[in-house]
């Protein structure tokens, strides 16, 4: 034992390599390897007659992806949902994160952490199906809205084209509510962490120099919380882009990217098209991150 310790001491590189080898193998072969295999698939195409994959590099599958209006619709629909969910999750999460980071007593903070994390201990499927019941026409949500006398508001929302539908459970609005609910913790936690890192004295300095609370928020809090927003939005954005269960359980019948991947590789058996579809979120997130970087979201890191 002592001999090993002596040998390793002072051979830092070797020691680190020894520690890193198993996780690197996992990351390299199991994770990146399979991702690479998937990407390779997207550059193959399927033979239309035999339905067999032709292992020859081609862009035909991508051509198919962007030339079909239905496919483009699916991409835009998913992208629109991801953007809307991200924006609203950010707006809803901020007051909670702000309270947790700067105002809550240690007890209250622990309570809020548990409150935010607790739903994640429940099975994701259970929550989605529970939401379908809550959002149903005779469900608890419409009953509650009725009790508040706000039924006309709900009906007006459901009568709105595109987002509306016969009931919340079968409309994009309902799907949107479930998405926001599901991914909210992923926005709250990084945002809280970012706000906790903003020293109280910076806010005092801002007020001291004459900034009203709104100005302090705009000039100091928001820019310094931006890395938190960026981290949180990567979660909400990518989770929405890739999800295939929520759109198939709740909401209108329109397809989403995740459902398309699921269907193409399973039912249809068009693995190249499924792979091409799964490349779309990767590209969208890459674009999103480069935009965020250009906007200076990571400056304060």
């Amino acid at each position, binding site marked *: 034992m002592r001999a090993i310790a002596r040998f390793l001491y002072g051979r830092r590189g070797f020691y680190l390599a020894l520690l890193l080898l198993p996780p690197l193998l996992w990351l390299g072969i199991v994770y990146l390897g399979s991702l690479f295999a998937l990407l390779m698939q997207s550059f193959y195409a399927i033979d239309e007659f035999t339905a067999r994959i032709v292992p020859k590099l081609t862009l035909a599958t991508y051509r198919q992806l962007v030339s079909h209006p239905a496919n483009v619709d699916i991409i835009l629909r998913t992208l629109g949902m991801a953007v809307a969910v991200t924006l609203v999750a950010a707006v809803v999460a901020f007051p909670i994160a702000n309270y947790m980071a700067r105002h809550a007593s240690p007890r209250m903070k622990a309570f809020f952490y548990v409150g935010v994390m607790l739903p994640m201990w429940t099975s994701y499927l259970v929550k989605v199906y529970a939401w379908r019941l809550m959002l149903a026409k005779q469900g608890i949500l419409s009953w509650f809205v009725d009790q508040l006398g706000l039924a006309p508001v709900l009906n007006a929302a459901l009568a709105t084209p595109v987002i509306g539908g016969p009931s919340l459970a079968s409309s994009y609005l309902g799907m949107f509510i479930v998405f926001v609910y599901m991914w909210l913790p992923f926005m709250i936690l990084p945002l809280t962490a970012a706000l906790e890192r903003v020293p109280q004295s910076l806010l005092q300095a801002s*007020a001291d*120099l*004459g900034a009203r609370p709104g100005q302090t928020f705009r*000039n100091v809090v928001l820019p310094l919380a931006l890395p938190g927003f960026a981290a949180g939005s990567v979660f909400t954005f990518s989770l929405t882009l890739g999800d295939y269960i929520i759109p198939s359980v709740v909401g209108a019948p329109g397809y989403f990217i995740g459902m398309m991947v699921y269907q193409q590789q399973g039912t249809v058996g068009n693995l190249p098209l499924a792979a091409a579809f799964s490349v779309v979120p990767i590209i969208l997130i890459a674009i999103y991150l480069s935009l965020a970087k250009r906007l200076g979201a990571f400056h*304060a890191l």
Partner: protein
Amino acid sequence: MTPAIELAGVSRLFGAVRALDDVSLAVAPGEFFALLGPSGSGKTTCLRLIAGFDRPTHGNVMLDGEDVTDIPPFERSVNTVFQDYALFPHMNVAENVAYGPKVRGMPGPERRRLALEVLELVRLAALAERSPAQLSGGQKQRVALARALINRPKVLLLDEPLGALDLRLREEMQIELKAIQQQVGITFVYVTHDQGEALSMADRVAVFREGRMEQLDAPRDLYQRPRTPFVARFVGSANVVEGELARRITGVARTFAIRAEAIEVLPAGAPAPDGALSCEGVLEEFHYHGATSRCHVRTDAGPVIAAVRPEGSPAAVTARGSRVRLVWSREDLVPLADT
């Protein structure tokens, strides 16, 4: 003349803890005023009440004759230099300094010009485009000062501004701060726990202890005429003599202070001049510091008295364990209020 700052019967309670207990003081316009005390004495609470970050439980805060007790910090003509500088990390030096004018609606080019002017005052104009993370402690300190001065406040509050700097830089900045204060003529309220800093810089010093103001005086009066044992020890590092030892020396058991450098250390039995006070004991510690030496003498009555002797003083006794006689002039004795 209307005081720049006036606290009238101000208390701040945190539950049962009296962070500040019935403090009244007035600061004259243009004065360099120091709040001195150990940590937890209430000096920083006092500063926060003047800045408006906190509100008193009782009493009133007046700025320039106007009651500002309920006015938020962003509407007070007071600016603060924070202990941790509190520079905005996402702005460069010039933007940090221009922040005050910016939130007050001054247009971009104009506030930039003004910021560079104020940076000139603290000799940092060359670093205007740097980010705060690229500055040294002393430079950050100056940026914080420039940022607070640009609004031309009536009062500048400084919360242990030199606490994080090393000794040499601290001494340089003391001189510079004092010079800047005289140049701009703004009232400075300076919080510190370093009595040397307070004595060398301030026009007047308020000494705080456990939420109460113990004494408010000019530095020399504070040093030479402390009124309480706490002030004598904290400000002057003086010996506080009480009880039996006081009775043996002066004939009455009244507490008094005697500064260490006023005491002469002679061999035991040496004749004392007429009218001088003296006592005898054993030299327990002797520390040589160069310009001075410090002696700790265990008096025959029990308590230890410290004496500081300049280098080259005659008949110096240096051997630990020798019997010595401590002698000082009657005028150097300062009677204290018992607390």
